[in-house]
């Protein structure tokens, strides 16, 4: 089993700016762990802390239960895959892959052999003598992974490595990365701003915003039970309506909003009388021509056909924008633009989260 990574109350400040606030997480050995957040949220800073390019201002980083304080990047059991890949353009592919072994003083014949094995692993046999510029984007990606794996790292750090690829290749590489991770058993820490990437590949995801950890959960949990309004809005599409809590009972809460009164599941720590938002996923919205309990009156704006379903955009009387998924079999009943409709939802499928302390 490869090493676990433990972050204890890690903080990183650049001058007056705090890029990471009190971040704690335990990443198990062999886990595929993603850190998800918008650009500039501090996730790359966090990765560079683990790699050892910077030392945290406060807090500790443990890899395999060993404190990494004072251990520089070249002596940590980590390997990083950079956003730009940072392959060495003046070396052939095999020397790129074997560079870490070269640094460790492995003899040339052995390096060459290991590079060939890794080329086999990434399905690029016979590419050893090519130059980096002769490879396609996806091939370069795989060479970067092979180069990182060559040093047999305990922890692989990936900094948005797929962001430069086109959609089709990105989806293909997701599956490959996931399979590779399972095959090698190496702990992966994957940074991304793309929530679908994080949800598709990870065992667990940490959501970050403005340097603050929002939630660590499995992808399913993250989608179904976001802990903060930020997570609810950032992960997947959602309808969020702000209001005041009026009554809490048996795990359900009632929220009065400008759009009316709604009932939904109460999020953890929700208190009566405070500002809160109700979040309803578009697929939980049911379309009707009559008013039902827990429903919103709205005017249809547009219908975007997405293949497996369609996304209905509507706007309420008070200007609230609303989204609802219309399954293909109901497309026949879909409203015309401008038509008056009702969107309703079951209380169990809506979540009410406190807006207290949520800056964004």
């Amino acid at each position: 089993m490869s090493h676990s990574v433990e972050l204890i109350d890690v903080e990183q400040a650049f001058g007056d700016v705090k890029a990471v606030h009190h971040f704690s997480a335990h990443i198990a050995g062999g886990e595929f762990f993603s850190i998800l957040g918008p650009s500039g949220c501090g996730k790359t800073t966090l990765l560079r802390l683990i790699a050892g390019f910077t030392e945290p201002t406060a807090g500790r980083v443990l890899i395999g239960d060993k404190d990494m304080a004072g251990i520089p990047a070249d002596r940590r059991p980590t390997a990083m895959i950079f956003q730009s890949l940072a392959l060495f353009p003046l070396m052939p592919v095999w020397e790129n892959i074997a560079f870490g072994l070269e640094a460790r003083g492995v003899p040339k014949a052995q390096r060459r052999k290991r590079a060939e094995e890794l080329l086999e692993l990434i399905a690029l046999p016979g590419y050893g003598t090519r130059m980096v510029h002769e490879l396609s984007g996806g091939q370069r990606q795989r060479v970067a992974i092979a180069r990182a794996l060559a040093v047999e790292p305990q922890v692989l750090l990936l900094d948005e490595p797929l962001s430069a690829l086109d959609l089709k290749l990105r989806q293909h590489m997701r599956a490959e990365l996931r399979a590779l991770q399972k095959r090698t058993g190496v702990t992966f820490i994957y940074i991304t701003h793309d929530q679908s990437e994080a949800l598709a590949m990870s065992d667990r995801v940490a959501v970050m915003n403005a340097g603050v950890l929002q939630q660590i959960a499995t992808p399913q949990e993250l989608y179904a039970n976001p802990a903060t309004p930020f997570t609810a809005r950032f992960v997947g599409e959602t309808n969020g309506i702000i209001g005041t809590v009026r009554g809490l009972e048996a795990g359900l809460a009632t929220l009065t909003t400008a759009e009316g009164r709604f009932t939904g599941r109460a999020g953890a720590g929700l208190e009566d009388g405070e500002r809160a938002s109700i979040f309803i996923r578009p697929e939980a919205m049911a379309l009707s021509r009559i008013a039902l309990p827990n429903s919103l009156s709205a005017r249809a704006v547009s219908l975007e056909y997405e293949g497996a379903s369609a996304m209905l955009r509507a706007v309420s009387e008070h200007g609230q924008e609303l989204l609802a998924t219309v399954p293909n079999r109901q497309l026949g009943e879909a409203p015309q633009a401008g038509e008056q409709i009702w969107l309703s939802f079951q209380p169990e499928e809506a979540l009410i989260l406190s807006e207290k302390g949520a800056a964004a």
Partner: protein
Amino acid sequence: MTEMIKRFGPGLGGFFIALVALWIIGMVLAPNLMMLNFSLKPMLFPNDIGGPKDVYTVENYTALFGDRVHRAIFLKTVWGSGLVMLATLAITYPLAFWMAKVATIRGARAMLIALIIPFWINEVLRTLAWFIILSFNGPLNAFLLSIGLIDAPVRWQGDFGVLAGMVYAYILFMLFPIYNSISTLETAQLEAAKNLGASTWRIHRRIVIPHAKAGIATGCVFTFMLAAGSYVAPALLGSPGSRWFTEIIYNWFFEGGNWNRGAAYALVLLVLCMAVVMVTLKIFRVNLADVAK
């Protein structure tokens, strides 16, 4: 050439081509051919020119290698210029790397300004400043005596003075090409190499130097040629024991009055410089077009 005419029309295009041709033929080729002609003739009294003694000969060239002192000075100039080149490279490379990859933008800018400002002053005056610093009763000796590093003043002028003066005079010609080429290196490559466990030495040997080799070759070629053709630094900071080949050429022209011998010596220096350029470019596997970039 057809490109030029296509772009500017036959009139203007032809004019530009004529200007370039005039420059190359009138300012570069003709004087050098005249020098070559001079160098292949013996020195004659004016009334002998065109007479039976006015024949082509290589004796001006054989004289250089036949004269023990001149040959020694020539070889010393070659090796001295090489030393200037290596010393400048050794000082400049870490500085260029620091400016391009380590320093903050403000730090790099401050360093650049600090390096450029002295060059606003005329080269002779700058060298004279070194003359003062290095003189026997000058500030350097006074300083070293006061901190007790030396017991008696040292004669810095001579070989050391020439080396120091030239390194200082040509540092920017080495710095800029190397700085430029290192700054185009993606910083992530350095981090990737470090992350893979490479030592600082290996990062430079395998990543930075191969990337910057065109800049290094350019800087080395510039510095060598400038050093080999230098006159002010050896004249001011040298001693009788550290004469430079340019001083010999100068003497043939302006003191010995033997233009023919001077021309032969100057051409030997020119051929040497060209050979060094070619060899350096060959060693670094860079072609002239890369240097011009």
